[in-house]
């Protein structure tokens, strides 16, 4: 290598090293982008899917008629429900129980799309972990509570309704 080439290489390396350090020191003085999760939380976008929740109407009753279409639509078959039978032996168009196994739910939204009575909505609750397996088994009271306490949206055919 010629002497001039050597000096040019030294100058080039020195300038590129200095440029790199300018970049890092600029980033050093930027505030960190970390969100301290349990204390601070990000705003979820509308329509975030966490858990299917049961809609409660103005009368305080569920919209659900226990028709069972959601259970049929569910790919992992985690919805277990039964229609309430009154004391007179007549069917009541209301669930006796509505159990959801969140340990296997894949948030696919198909149960919500299948529901003809606007009774299911996807709530944005995402802190669902628990210490026992039973904590992931949701009955209809807990699903209704989740609907009351979280933002939820009904998505059908790709549209938010």
């Amino acid at each position, binding site marked *: 290598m010629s002497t001039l080439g050597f000096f040019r290489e030294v100058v080039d390396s020195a300038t590129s090293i200095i440029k790199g350090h300018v970049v890092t020191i600029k*980033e050093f003085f930027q505030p960190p982008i*970390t969100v301290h999760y349990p204390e601070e939380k990000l705003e979820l976008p509308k329509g975030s899917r966490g858990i299917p929740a049961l809609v409660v109407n103005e009368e305080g009753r569920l919209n659900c008629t226990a028709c069972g279409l959601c259970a049929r639509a569910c790919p992992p078959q985690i919805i277990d429900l039964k229609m309430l039978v009154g004391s007179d032996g007549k069917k009541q168009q209301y669930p006796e129980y509505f159990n959801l196994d969140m340990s296997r739910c894949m948030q696919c939204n198909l149960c919500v799309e299948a529901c003809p009575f606007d009774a299911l909505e996807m709530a944005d609750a995402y802190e669902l972990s628990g210490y026992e397996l039973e904590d992931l088994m949701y009955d209809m009271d807990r699903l209704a509570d989740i609907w009351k306490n979280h933002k939820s949206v009904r998505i059908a055919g790709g549209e938010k309704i």
Partner: protein
Amino acid sequence: MPQLLVALIKVVVILGFVGVNALFLIWLERKVSARIQNRVGPYRVGPPHGLLQTIADAIKLLAKEDVMPGAADRWVWFFAPVVMFIPAILVFLPIPFGPQLIVKDLNIGILYIAAVTSFSLLAIFMAGWGSNNKYSLLGAMRAAAQLVSYEVPLVLSVIGVVMMAQSMSLVDIVAGQERIWFVVPQILGFIVFFIASLAELNRTPFDLSEAESELVAGYITEYSGLRWGFFFVAEYTNLFTASAIAVTLFLGGWHGPLLPPIIWFLIKTYFLVFVAMWIRWTLPRVRIDQLADIGWKFLLPVSLFNILLTGVFLS
């Protein structure tokens, strides 16, 4: 008797400082790297910004099981962390932290530092050889090649300062910088000294001996728990002492207006430590041939030229 007591107090103060300083520097390194990468870094342990994180880590290291590889060369492996740690502390001996704050003023201070810091090479090779592990040995071989080749420009870059101060004692060198810091006339020497110290410390961009992508952890692969902690503390103590020596030789030591000398010394030293960390989190690791090139083809000629220049100006 009082002499023994004074010596004992000095030892305790220095050992305490070494411990606290290493814990602080590890925390600082993690914070600096985090902020350069737009992260937060240690945050949870010890409310003011995770300051107690390294104490928790140290307790964890102390509580770990002492594992020795079955095929290790027992005594060599056993003593390597100790041999690494002792020179790191011995370097504190001739460094003046303030006008009176010095353990012992040696008239061959620089020579002493150059001699003592070379011991870490022995420790690295003991660790690499004693572990009986190919990664350890490869890391140690690289470290040996690297340290030997960078020792030369490191010492040569200091000669310019010695020529200007007319003394090898660090106290005299600091005294010689009362009017002007040696970094101004010795800018070439300072650059060479700083780059060579980074290489001597095995820090990125010259951390080939512990390149984790190819050598696991180099010579400390087989160490864990307290022994690994010894290497870690020695590494960060060396980082501090290298910065302290650079401050003493080039940045005026404890000289500075208004504030007390010890504060000035620590400000300058920790600033250089920060610069070393800044470099570490900016530059990628060099290849082994680039490493040899920088050492022999750039640093050595520049340091020799610096000596020539200093000689011409002084005569």
